[in-house]
């Protein structure tokens, strides 16, 4: 990360970078905050921000002087808890459908006509009839599984505060019927997004639900591909969850450290640097300025519009209740896809467990 060094140098500091994987990062951050040696700058996955803010680890943007006013509100929402904003996103990504052009044209499917669930199911049936695999996705029993299911859940019009609504059940019914019909490989139940991508990359599947970060791999896949937004139930673009990281400033006992930290953060998130970071990491910019620069790349406009329709997982002021609901959601998906429970029963079990865990919210 040369950018880190140059930003550090311009702020008159030397930056030591320590990397962790997502779950380890959360426990590591909590531990270091407990021991009173939080890092000066913390870059974390967006759904973790509200947990850390709730833990009292992060400084809110009123306490420091991070200016997040240029950031699109739907992307900033993941960092908002009880009316206060914590940190600033450096880039966003989300989910869409990659498709294999060769398979679709052989099966006689025009991807531009896929606007609703019914269109997509019909396309999957055609692909299956042509002897190819349907769609790869990740329904694993972790946060990734919820992340992948949310576009369909939200695309039905359902809300996370009521998992057992008819819309929510309809979304789960859609996935379950695909699994029963053999449109989704059975391994989806244990696949991470990386392994489900590997299945798509074999060239045997027509669609893959995956993220912006796979763009570089798609170029290497060795077949012609295209991207369409995930359709909603009735038609139109479904809101997908936002991924991507926030730059945050953890609270420090020694407040004299903040001015330098703020210089580093504003350097990291300046339009030019953010553009470079986003391009390298496969992110979509979070400000109009960066997005305009990116729009010149022909692959990116579909992602820019997908990000514009996307929604933070912890938004709707769910905050730290989101993880509790999410756990029940991925469990319901697993129960239904394995046939252990019907979609209706799975969702109503999930809803009562989520209500109990969140105290009825």
């Amino acid at each position, binding site marked *: 990360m040369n950018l880190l060094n140059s930003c550090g140098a311009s702020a008159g500091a030397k930056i030591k970078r320590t990397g962790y994987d997502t779950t380890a990062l959360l426990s590591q951050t909590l531990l270091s905050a407990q021991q009173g040696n939080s890092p000066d700058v913390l870059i974390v996955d967006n759904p973790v921000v509200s947990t850390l803010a709730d833990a009292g680890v992060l400084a809110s943007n009123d306490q420091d002087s991070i200016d997040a006013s240029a950031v699109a509100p739907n992307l900033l929402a993941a960092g908002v808890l009880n009316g206060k904003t914590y940190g600033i996103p450096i880039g966003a990504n989300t989910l869409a459908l990659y498709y294999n052009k060769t398979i679709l044209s052989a099966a006689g499917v025009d991807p531009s006509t896929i606007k609703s669930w019914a269109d997509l199911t019909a396309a999957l049936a055609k692909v299956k009839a042509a002897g190819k695999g349907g769609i790869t996705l990740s329904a694993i029993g972790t946060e990734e599984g919820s992340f992948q299911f949310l576009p369909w859940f939200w695309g039905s019009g359902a809300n996370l505060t009521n998992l057992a609504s008819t819309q929510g059940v309809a979304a789960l019914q859609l996935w379950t019927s695909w699994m029963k019909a053999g449109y989704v490989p059975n391994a989806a139940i244990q696949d991470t997004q990386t392994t489900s991508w590997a299945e798509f990359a074999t060239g045997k599947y027509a669609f893959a639900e995956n993220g912006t970060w796979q763009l570089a791999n798609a170029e290497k896949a060795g077949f012609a591909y295209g991207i369409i937004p995930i359709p909603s139930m009735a038609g139109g673009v479904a809101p997908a969850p936002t991924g991507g990281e926030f730059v945050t400033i953890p609270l420090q006992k020694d407040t004299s450290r903040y001015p330098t930290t703020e210089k580093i953060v504003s350097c990291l998130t300046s339009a030019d640097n953010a553009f470079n970071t986003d391009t390298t990491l496969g992110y979509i910019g979070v400000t109009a300025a960066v997005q305009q620069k990116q729009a010149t790349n022909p692959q990116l406009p579909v992602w820019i519009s997908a990000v514009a329709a996307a929604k933070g997982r912890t938004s709707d002021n769910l905050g730290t209740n989101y*993880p509790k609901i999410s756990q029940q959601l991925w469990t319901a998906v697993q129960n239904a896809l394995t046939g252990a429970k019907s979609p209706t029963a799975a969702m109503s079990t999930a809803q009562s*467990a989520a209500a109990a865990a969140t105290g009825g919210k």
Partner: protein
Amino acid sequence: MSDTTGIQAHPSQRDGGGAAAAVPPPSARDRSRKPAASQLAAWAFLAPVTIYLLLFYAYPLYRSLDLSLRNYTVRSFVHGHAPFSGLKNYRIDIRDPTFTPALLHTLIFTLVSIAFQFVIGLGLAMFFVQHFKLSATLRALFLVPWLLPLIVSASTWSWMLNSDSGVVNSALHRFGFAPVNWLTAPKWALVSVIIANIWIGIPFNLVLMYSGLQAISPDIYEAAALDGANGWQRFWRVTFPLLRPVTAVTLLLGLVYTLKVFDIIWIMTRGGPAGASTTFATWSYQLSFGNLLPAFGPGAAVANMLIVMTLIFGFVYFRIQRKQLES
């Protein structure tokens, strides 16, 4: 003598001052009296192991117990002052719908794994003790599962058992059987992780039983053969009784290792699908670290229940050992 008292000086400089303080510091005055000096030397020799035990065993155990008895949120984890909540976390766990299945899975996983590991390990040990050509090479090959990093073997099993592209299903298909959703069907997930765990545990049993077999003098077999004992009788009347001490150690160590198995299950199934292969070990991790919002209290409570289960088995072992010594 003055060197050994020097050891005492180090611990007090460490962070865990509370733990080190439990060892009585020697005072200069004691050294003048002869019996006290030897007492002192005894303490000094004990100090390293005592401090080690306190620092690396007693303190973490105390912390784990403390975590499980307080109502920790992420906020109180960072800033302290988590209110004491008695056994509430344990009640939360026991009332959790995951509890009964997780307990059952833990017991089934442990007992079935051990039974197969032990029988196969013993069988192979009997086989290799015959010293035929290549036996040393083959025995070394059997150690491979033990030498491989768990992440490698568990990932390999996970690929082999993949529903759609796994080599196991492809073999089943070739012989005309329907594919099995090894890792994604609730009724198969636990079976699959048990199979992988048995494979990993066999070398351990093989090595211990093999060394046990080697310790049995050939004279005894010769005497038994002269008395007209057939192969079956030689095994049950000679080999098995003489192997009993080694068997007890192997089984106990196996129990402790297997109860806490985490990596294999987590890598292969994440305890899923929908909790179908969740054991206490994976459930505890799931609660404490596998979620965006850690539940440290209930997670620590599950871990402590696991420790209690291990302790029970440990006491059973000591019981058996004492009985053996007496007889």
